[in-house]
């Protein structure tokens, strides 16, 4: 829990993660696990290991004020999970993350809009949910709509009629108006057309110039290189590298290249094996009629 008291005192890092780890149960039998939770609480039975999975473990880093940190890594290595823990919407099983200062909501597609409300109502609702006063929203409403490029006649139609691009644009426009000192961005920059992207870039540049701290998850190297002065490379649920963004990306690309090569080799080996098997089958021809038989049987059973 970040308290305002700490924020006033601190001059050190804005985000501190120490030995962060989160655990998911794989293929869990819910009944047993529910009982366990009641009995052991957060410290679960150490014997029950085996079918649990740590998307992230033992991740430690500090982020200083004004930093823009890019998180890179393959899909499913826990980048978004990490972001969620910084945002405080997921609680770590191990370690601790302390954030000094207010964190803007996790910037994500749709921004928590309610489909049944109009664009205007949603802007007011989500804006005030995130701590803006009505007066502030009044003042900025035109800017938001203008930034989002939502035509005035659509702002009073329910959001469910919006295109996905419109929703994202409106969400981004709203959140870019928040004055929280820490921004977390999860892969939103990928959406939106070129013109909108450019505007987003400008908005982010403005925010960064404003001494704000930002953590960015993205697969877009250009975006990352453009904004970030630091890179965290996450590999297999652990922090592999904590350097400048270029080295992080280089390491990531290098690993990807190696992996692709390995896969190619594997594929080739598979192909060869398949070809060999085919030749064998052609030579013998008998197993094929066998497989047809079973197919017929199955059909009969189904009928």
């Amino acid at each position, binding site marked *: 829990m970040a308290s305002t008291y700490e924020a006033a005192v601190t001059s050190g890092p804005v985000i501190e993660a120490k030995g962060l780890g989160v655990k998911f149960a794989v293929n869990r039998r819910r009944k047993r*696990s*529910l009982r366990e*939770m009641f009995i052991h609480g957060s410290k679960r039975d150490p014997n029950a290991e085996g079918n649990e999975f740590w998307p992230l473990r033992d991740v430690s880093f500090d982020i200083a004020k004004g930093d823009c940190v890019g998180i890179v890594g393959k899909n499913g290595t826990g980048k978004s999970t990490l972001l969620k823990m910084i945002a405080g919407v997921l609680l770590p099983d191990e370690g601790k993350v302390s954030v000094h200062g207010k964190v803007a909501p*996790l910037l*994500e597609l749709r921004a928590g809009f*309610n489909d049944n*409300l109009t664009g205007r109502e949603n802007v007011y609702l989500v804006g005030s949910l995130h701590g803006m006063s009505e007066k502030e929203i009044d003042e900025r409403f035109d800017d938001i709509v203008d930034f989002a490029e939502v035509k005035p006649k659509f702002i009073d139609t329910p959001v469910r009629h919006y295109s996905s691009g419109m929703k994202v644009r409106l969400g981004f426009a709203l959140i870019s108006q928040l004055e929280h000192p820490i921004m977390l961005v999860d892969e939103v920059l990928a959406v939106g057309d070129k013109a909108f992207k450019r505007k987003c870039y400008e908005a982010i540049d403005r925010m960064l110039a404003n001494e704000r701290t930002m953590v960015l998850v993205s697969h877009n190297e250009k975006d990352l290189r453009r904004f970030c002065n630091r890179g965290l490379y996450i590999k297999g649920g652990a922090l592999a590298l904590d350097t400048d963004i270029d080295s992080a990306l280089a390491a990531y690309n290098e690993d990807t290249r190696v992996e692709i090569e390995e896969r190619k080799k594997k594929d080739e080996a598979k192909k060869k094996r398949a070809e060999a098997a085919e030749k064998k089958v052609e030579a013998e021809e008998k197993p094929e009629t066998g497989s047809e038989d079973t197919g017929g049987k199955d059909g009969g059973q189904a009928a």
Partner: protein
Amino acid sequence: MASRTLAVWEHRKVVGLLVRRDLKVKYQQSVLGYAWTMLEPLALTLVYYFVFGVVLQANRGMPEDAGAYGGYVLFLVAGILPWTTFGAILSEAPRAMITHSKLITTMKVPREIFPMATVGTKFIEYVLTWPVLLIFVFSLGGRFTWEGMLLWLPLAVVLTFMFGLGVTLFLSAVNVLLRDVERLTRILTRILFYGSAILFPAAMVLGSGAPGWVKTLYEINPLVGIFQMHRTVWFPGFEELTPSPLALTSAVVGSILMFVIGYWTFRRLEMSVLKEL
């Protein structure tokens, strides 16, 4: 614990916003809009009025001289209206977290806020049933007493919503991990409707030939006491319609206990719930 309570207090505005949004969404696409909050209970009570009051001429288990103060019909209406609210809480409780998953996974607020908003919405809807209740009170000759207004009414309302919030905290968290809860709750609501003496005075069960332990068990259900109180508001002084000491105690203790259990469970399961949403 204290800091958590403080955090919830700091976010009370969010609860208000969610309540307002829920009401807005609910009545958005209907022509009559907010009028439905009153039309629905009115229609419901009219149905009960015709079935039990006009057709069946029911006066079951009511004391003789209660007839002058609204009789069985007022008794019925005064019980049915809070029950519809309570039943609505029960039916929405399991989904209180799931429906807000989008906000829960992007916004850092104390998670208790979402069940609180669900119960808050129902509270507003309960307040809006009061005009309907008052129509019946005036037309049937119900009386206002200090005892009813200052003792039984606040007690009944506080206990109903404390119990409701406890149940919502409990069910909303458990249902994320165990979706069966939703269906189970539906059946349970039905049982509780008859088990909490909504359609008849609790005295009917207590005065029947059932064995003593059954009666005790019956009175231990906190809802029996709570819903008796809702009616005692209009019938104070009638021995049969006032909760017995046992019912009163179990209502108060039961509500507090439900709230504590609900909150404890909610906090206990919070981590797993966040992972599953």
